[in-house]
C-alpha cells in the first residue's frame, strides 16, 4: 500500500511542494526552531541534562541505531499500534453500524458508551494492570479501548447522516431491509469509517506511548521514560521527535490518502 502508484504521485507532489513558497516557510520555521533550540542549549550551564543541542540529539540517534536499539523499540511500538488498533476498529466499526441501524439498540447502549468514553485510556490503566500485570496484553487492551470509542461514535453518526431519500429510493425499487443495509447504509457510511479510523489510530498512537511508560514494556514510550531516569535527556528528545515524525508519515501516506480516496471518489464533499 505504501508503495502504490497513488502514493508515489503523492510523494512526488510532496517534493514539488518543496520548491514552492509553503516549503520555504516550512524550512524557515524548522530552521528557526533549531536555531533557538541551539542558542538556548548553549546558554544553559548543563545542557546535557536540561536541553541537549540538536546535534547532540542527532548523535545519540546514530549511537542508538548502531546499537540496534532504536529499530527494535520502533518496531515494538508500531507492532503494538497495528495489532491494538486493528482489534479496536474490528470491534468498533460493526458496533457503530449496529447502533446506527437500530434505534432500540442505540438507546440501550448510548448512555454507557458516553460514560466510558469519558474515562480515558490512562484512567483505566490501573485496573487493567491489576488484571493482566505489566504485559503486552495490558497495552493492547488499553489501545483497543482507546481506539474503540472514536470509531464507534463516528460510524454511528455516519449511518444516521445518510439522507433518507437514498433509503426511500431503494425501498421503492423493491429493496429489502437487508438490501438497504448492504447497498445504502454500509457504503454510505464508508467515508465516516475512513475518518473515524484515522481519528482512532491517532488516539491509539498516544495510548501506545503512554501504555509503554506505565506498563514498562520496551518501545518508544518506554525509551523516553527510562532515558529520563538515567539522565539521558538527548534520548528523551529523540524519542519525542520520532513519535511526532512517525505519526506525520503514517498519517500523510496511509490514513489521509485512504480517507480522501473514499470521500473524493464518491464526491461526498463539496470542494
Amino acid at each position, binding site marked *: 500500500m505504501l508503495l502504490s502508484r497513488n502514493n508515489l504521485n503523492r510523494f512526488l507532489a510532496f517534493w514539488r511542494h518543496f520548491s514552492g513558497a509553503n516549503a520555504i516557510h516550512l524550512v524557515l520555521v524548522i530552521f528557526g526552531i533549531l536555531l533557538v533550540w541551539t542558542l538556548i542549549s548553549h546558554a544553559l550551564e548543563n545542557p546535557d541534562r536540561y536541553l541537549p543541542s540538536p546535534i547532540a540529539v542527532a548523535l545519540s540517534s546514530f549511537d542508538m541505531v548502531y546499537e540496534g536499539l532504536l529499530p527494535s523499540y520502533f518496531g515494538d511500538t508500531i507492532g503494538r499500534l497495528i495489532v491494538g488498533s486493528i482489534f479496536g476498529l474490528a470491534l468498533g466499526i460493526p458496533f457503530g453500524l449496529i447502533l446506527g441501524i437500530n434505534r432500540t439498540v442505540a438507546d440501550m447502549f448510548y448512555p454507557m458508551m458516553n460514560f466510558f468514553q469519558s474515562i480515558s485510556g490512562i484512567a483505566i490503566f490501573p485496573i487493567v494492570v491489576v488484571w493482566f500485570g505489566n504485559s503486552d496484553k495490558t497495552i493492547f487492551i488499553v489501545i483497543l479501548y482507546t481506539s474503540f470509542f472514536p470509531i464507534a461514535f463516528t460510524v454511528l453518526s455516519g449511518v444516521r447522516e445518510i439522507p433518507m431519500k437514498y433509503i*426511500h429510493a431503494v*425501498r421503492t*425499487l*423493491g429493496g429489502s431491509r437487508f438490501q438497504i443495509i448492504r*447497498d445504502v447504509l454500509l457504503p454510505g457510511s464508508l467515508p465516516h469509517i475512513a475518518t473515524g479510523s484515522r481519528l482512532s489510530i491517532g488516539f491509539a498512537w498516544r495510548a501506545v506511548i503512554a501504555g509503554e511508560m506505565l506498563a514498562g514494556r520496551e518501545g518508544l514510550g518506554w525509551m523516553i521514560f527510562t532515558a529520563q531516569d538515567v539522565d539521558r535527556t538527548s534520548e528523551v528528545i529523540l524519542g519525542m521527535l520520532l513519535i511526532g515524525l512517525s505519526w506525520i508519515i503514517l498519517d500523510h501516506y496511509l490514513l489521509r490518502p485512504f480517507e480522501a480516496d473514499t470521500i473524493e*471518489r*464518491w464526491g*461526498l464533499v463539496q470542494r
Partner: protein
Amino acid sequence: MPAKLVIQDLTHHYPDEYTGESVHALEKINLKVEEGELVTVVGPSGCGKSTLLNILAGLLPYREGLVTVDGVKIEGPGSDRGVVFQEHAILPWRSVSKNIGHGLELRGAPVEERKQKVAAFIKLVGLEGFEDKYPHELSGGMKQRCAVARTLCADPVVMLMDEPFAAVDAQTRITLQEELNRIAIATKKTIIFITHAVDEAAFLGDRCFVFSARPGRLKAIVDINIAREKRIWSEMNVDKEFLSSRDEILRLVREEVNVAIEE
C-alpha cells in the same frame, strides 16, 4: 378494463413535526388513473401533493380510504410503483449503469438481462458514454435522466414523479419535459407527475388534477386533448388547445393560492 390506479375516499391527517398538532393534509380524494395515461397533479404549496405521492409510494401509511394498483391495496413500498424523487436520489457510490440496474439487481435478475436492459435505458435517456461515471460527475439534468432511467428499468406498473424537474435550470427543464414526453410515447408507462408549475402540468398531462389549498381536495380535472407526438415546446407555445388548458389550470390554481393567502 378497470383503471390502473384507483384512489377512493382517501383522507389523511398527520401530526405536525414541531407543534404536534394534527394537520389535515388530504380530504376525501377520489380519482382514477387509466393504463398508459400520464396525469399531472398540480396545486398550491401545502396542498398535500407530496403527502399523496408518499402514500402512493407506500412510504407513508394511511388509514382512511383505499388506494389500489391493479386492484391490489397499497400497503408499503413495492417495485410495482417506481418513484422519481424531487432531489436526484441516485446513490452517489454507484456508477450510472449500476444505479440504473439497481432495481433488477435487487430482485436478482440475471446479469445478461441486466446488461441489456441497462443499455437500452441508457440509450433511451441519452446517457451513452456516461455509463461508468459517478453521480457527482453529472450535471443536474443528467442526474435526473439517470433517476428516470433507474425507475423505468425496474419496470414498475406505475411511475410516480415528485416535482422531478424543480431543481434544474429553466433550459434543462424544458428539454427534460420534452424527453419525458418522448419516453411516455416509447414506454406507454402509466405516470403520475406531481408539480407546482402550471406550464409543466399542461404540457405533460393527458389530464391534470388540480388540488385545492389545505386540506387538499380534488378541485377540478382538466383534460388536455393534444396528441403526444405534437407536444414540443415550439409548437405548444402557439397551440390554442394548450394555451386554453394552461390558462384554465392557472385560473384554478390561482383561486387556491388566493385562498391560501387570505387565510
